[in-house]
């Protein structure tokens, strides 16, 4: 800058024109070596609160001190490279890890004021309350009707056939499948297309009246049209349920979720508003992963 310009700057500063509020160091990216969680871990009135969750598979320490609140009626996406612990963490939320030999979960996961890892908690009603949709559609080898009716029947949610019919119809409607299957409810569920099978599994999940739905890569075996229908469904279901979705598709995470959590080698690296994560992540590892510079 030449002398004339310098004098002008002084003159302007003297006249009281305010400087920009921004300084570049305000938004410095967190270094790769820093593994403390960045972002909004806590929410008001959480549906589930996870504190210092650690998971060991034998000697392997798979998840390290994860703290995360899951809000009511939100879709939270969990992303990260393979082996980062996102599916393991998801399975902690309804104690699915209990079925894995050598798996030890420590820390606290509170739902409705109760510790779900407590020995006095019965996992059967817990898994109805926090139910799961898996990567590959897995309908029972039964009729479409029986696939949906099975859960309510074993949980004793219907007193008679009329009530059970109502649950089946409502669940299929909520899963966006009713119009496609209403005339063939007695046909096998395995005879449906992949996308329809996955929606049948969602209807089966809804039928037992869950509060939280866990989805572990629910669209990875589906074509783009079936994926779009599931994503549309997720958006509708959000008004009634809390949804945690694990996905390898970052575009899907960006499309369906309100909050996103990024896991890396067992650490929860960053969690925050999805739009912010996908436009201006604070942690270098998050940025490296979502921009395709890592893994």
């Amino acid at each position, binding site marked *: 800058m030449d002398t004339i310009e310098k004098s*002008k700057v002084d*003159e302007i500063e003297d006249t009281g024109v305010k400087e*920009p509020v*921004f*300084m*570049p160091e305000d938004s410095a990216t967190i270094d790769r070596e820093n593994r403390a969680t960045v972002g909004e871990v806590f929410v008001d009135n959480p549906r589930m609160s996870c504190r210092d969750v650690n998971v060991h598979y034998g000697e392997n320490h798979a998840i390290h001190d994860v703290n995360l609140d899951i809000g009511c009626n939100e879709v939270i996406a969990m992303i990260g490279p393979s082996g980062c612990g996102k599916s393991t963490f998801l399975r902690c939320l309804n104690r699915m890890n209990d079925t894995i030999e050598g798996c030890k979960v420590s820390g606290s996961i509170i739902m409705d004021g109760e510790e779900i890892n407590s020995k006095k908690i019965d996992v059967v009603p817990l898994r109805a309350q926090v139910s799961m949709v898996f990567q590959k559609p897995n309908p029972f080898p039964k009729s479409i009707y029986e696939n949906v009716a099975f859960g309510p029947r074993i949980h004793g949610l219907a007193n008679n056939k009329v009530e059970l019919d109502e649950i089946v119809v409502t669940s299929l409607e909520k899963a966006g499948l009713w119009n496609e299957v209403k005339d063939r409810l007695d046909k096998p569920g395995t005879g449906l297309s992949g996308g329809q099978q996955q929606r049948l599994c969602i209807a089966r999940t809804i039928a037992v009246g869950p509060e939280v739905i866990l989805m572990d890569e629910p669209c990875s075996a589906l074509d783009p049209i079936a994926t779009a229908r599931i994503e549309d469904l997720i958006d509708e279901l959000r008004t009634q349920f809390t949804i945690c979705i694990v996905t390898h598709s970052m*575009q899907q995470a960006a499309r369906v979720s309100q909050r996103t959590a990024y896991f890396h080698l067992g650490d929860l690296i960053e969690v925050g508003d999805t739009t912010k994560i996908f*436009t201006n992540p604070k942690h270098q590892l998050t940025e490296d992963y979502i*921009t395709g*510079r890592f893994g």
Partner: protein
Amino acid sequence: MQQPTEGHTVIRYDGELNRLHLMMLEMGSLVLDQVHTSLKALKTEDLVATRLVLDREHKVDELEIRADDEIVSLIARRGPVARDLRVIMAFSKSITDLERIGDEAARIARIIEEMYETERSHPSGQLMRDVHSMGTLVTNMLRRALGIIDGLDADDAVEMAREQGILDAEFRSSMRRLTTFVLEDARNVGHAIYITLIIKALERIGDHSRNLAEYVVYLMSGEDIRHSLNTPDPTDSPYYNDGPDSQGKQM
């Protein structure tokens, strides 16, 4: 330090972003030369130079279209997020501003042609003084902005954005002096109108140059600093009229 356009697992993606960056720099150097040539034409009364500026205007437009095609293609194929998304957004906006700088340079060339073709006498050195000083200021601003884009230098970009008042102050004082010349001698009015139009075009170029710096801040940090300065007090304007007898606060 790694460039923000580099480091992707898909190396071709790096190449595509770097190509866009180079395209923008090429466009930047062309519009800088357009501005420089227009101002030189004004100083030396060189109508060949103004013709060169007008002939090259379509090249700026072509570069804009090529860069826009590249941006649409990148968005469609790569689905950019985070810094990549900011790079593409910032480059896209920069290209629009560069094209407008090119338009202003061409506007100045047309005004010069008209001025020297229609006016019998040439403008006095006193009248031209402000055009030359503002031209130097604006050319320096544009050159600095292009350096910032080239090196993606966020610190200098913030510094440049902070200096918003320099251009405004220069524009205001130029307008005050021009008004005084016209009031002193009404025969100056013809030239004064042309010079006012040129000064206004230069002021626009300076504004677009500052925008370029602001986009680099957004690209590097994700912070949108546009309009982060307080809106200037309207009574500071030389055109502010607070009553029927007033000739403007500053005049």
